[in-house]
């Protein structure tokens, strides 16, 4: 087991309200793990407990085998990045980055060398002597990253580090954080409420809701095999259908269960295969089923088109296709093709 951090039986409550309930999980060394959940799900509370900034906790937090549950934050060797950047406005960029090394009373030469290295890495060398208020949001967060990474913490916690940034910068910085993490081999915990962000950069995702872990796994795991309804809804624009409805479309499934079908796994049948697919329809075990219906609306999402497809047997399906040149018109009567293995059951009710 190569978990760097293990959290056991974590319980956190303020004023009789239990915010975190019996949480257990591990974070693997050298990986980027995301805590993903809606606001109020408890992800930041858990992060602050790991940092040592929350004193009212029960349970055990172990870092590299040592129990750090009752250590003060300045003795944990953990770094943290705040959504507000939390730069020290009275210090220059270089002095901000040097701050932690100065607290450790490192030799001057070493401080200069390590700070310069970090400034190069985060591409902030040109702004070395600037003050935080002169920087853009993205630059501020890069300085905050440099300031934490220069101390080479065993674990770096990032608390919604990109939430205050514009969409474009958010994507750029997200990719940079992932690159730092991989190049320097830092173990990171990344808190976010944005599922696209979490999926784009994580090795491992921990979905939280209501103070509990809902699912832990890779982006692909979670996206392709959501455990329950909450995750299916939170993760994306899934088609969520019950067994009865699916049977009416020609799928052989358990009527008691619920299923998800990702909208991008449908394809429009615009070929001579129509008749072939039609034939397959009633042979229950066929690889591909073909569902007749009419295109109700199409909406351009830039690189994709999202269709609402009204099936002849009733339910509406969401279908997504790349915005290439071939796609059916609104009101066209077509079939959509669905591979049997694209129908994924939810594990929990």
């Amino acid at each position, binding site marked *: 087991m190569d978990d760097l951090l293990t959290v056991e039986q974590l319980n956190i409550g303020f004023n009789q309200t239990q915010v975190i309930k019996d949480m257990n999980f591990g974070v693997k060394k050298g990986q980027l793990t995301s805590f993903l959940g809606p606001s109020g799900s408890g992800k930041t509370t858990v992060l602050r407990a790991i940092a040592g900034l929350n004193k009212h906790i029960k349970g055990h937090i172990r870092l590299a085998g040592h129990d750090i549950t009752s250590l003060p934050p*300045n003795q944990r060797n953990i*770094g943290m990045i705040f959504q507000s950047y939390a730069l020290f406005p009275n210090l220059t960029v270089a002095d901000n980055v040097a701050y932690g090394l100065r607290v450790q009373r490192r030799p001057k030469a070493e401080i200069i060398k390590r700070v310069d290295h970090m400034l190069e890495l985060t591409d902030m060398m040109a702004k070395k002597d600037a003050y935080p208020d002169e920087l853009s949001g993205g630059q501020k967060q890069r300085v905050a990253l440099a300031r934490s990474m220069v101390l080479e913490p065993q674990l770096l916690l990032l608390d919604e580090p990109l939430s205050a940034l514009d969409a474009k910068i958010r994507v750029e910085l997200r990719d940079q954080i992932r690159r730092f993490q991989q190049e320097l081999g830092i173990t990171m915990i990344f808190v976010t409420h944005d599922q696209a962000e979490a999926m784009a950069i994580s090795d491992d995702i921990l979905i939280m809701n209501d103070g509990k872990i809902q699912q832990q796994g890779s982006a692909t795991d979670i996206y392709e095999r959501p455990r329950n309804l909450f995750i299916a809804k939170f993760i994306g624009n899934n088609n969520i259908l019950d067994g009865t409805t699916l049977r009416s479309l020609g799928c052989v499934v358990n009527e008691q269960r619920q299923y998800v079908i990702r909208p991008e796994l449908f394809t429009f049948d615009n070929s001579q295969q129509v008749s072939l697919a039609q034939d397959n329809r009633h042979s229950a075990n066929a690889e591909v089923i073909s569902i007749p219906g009419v295109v109700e609306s199409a909406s351009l999402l830039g690189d994709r088109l999202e269709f609402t497809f009204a099936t002849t047997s009733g339910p509406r399906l969401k279908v997504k296709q790349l915005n290439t040149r071939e796609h059916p018109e609104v009101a066209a009567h077509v079939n959509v093709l669905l591979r049997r293995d694209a129908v994924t059951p939810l594990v929990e009710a």
Partner: protein
Amino acid sequence: MTTERKWSVGILTMIAGLLLLPILATLIYSFATNWVKTILPASWTLKWYGQLVTNSDFLTATINSLIVGAAAVVVAMVIFLPVIFYINVFDERLKAKVRYLMVMPYAVPGIVLVTGLVQIYGNLPIPKLIFLILIITALSFPAFYQSLDNVFMSRDFRGMFEQARMLGERPVSAFVHVILPNIKTGVFVAMLLTFTTGFSEYVITNIFLNGDYETFKIYMYRLMKANGNANSVLTVCYFGLLILVAIILMKLSGKDVKAGK
């Protein structure tokens, strides 16, 4: 310029004029040898200023007021500053309750306090000046709090404090190294407000201390009854001090706050 704008500018100018004209008159009067029936005084002099500056009562009164003002500032800095930091950064619940204290100087002006003060503290074997300073400091708490409250809301000081902790600092060092340097203009404004409250206090000093301790304001009232020109000189001095403080406040207040935006 629209009609609405003209009206608004006119009314604002009127308000300012109503208050500034008397001050201008006082200023002229303080330089006048004699000014009764003419529009401007017949001749000018610096005599009244000279008389005042060399008057030992004036000096004593000024020094007495400075002592009260300075002492109030020291008490406020030592007692209020740490409490306000703690409340603002860590204790939302307590912060919500502080607003009850905010109305106190409004609901409890000196004249309401003073009868009871005499009754309670009048006979204790502790110098009354100490009570005076404590009471003045207590009355200036809301102004002190408010000047810092805006500053604390302008940046994520909690994040900065916690970040300093994550970077290895112990709590007191984190406060000294990271918080203090970034609230210094706010602290200065708070000090200035407390100082002026102390310097300008009249009712409590006059009645509670029974006139034994003559401050600037008490001297001013005394002179008002005695000598018109000398009084106008004193008024000009006092106004000069206040306007200086006001200008400093206007320049500084919101400086930490603006920088934080």
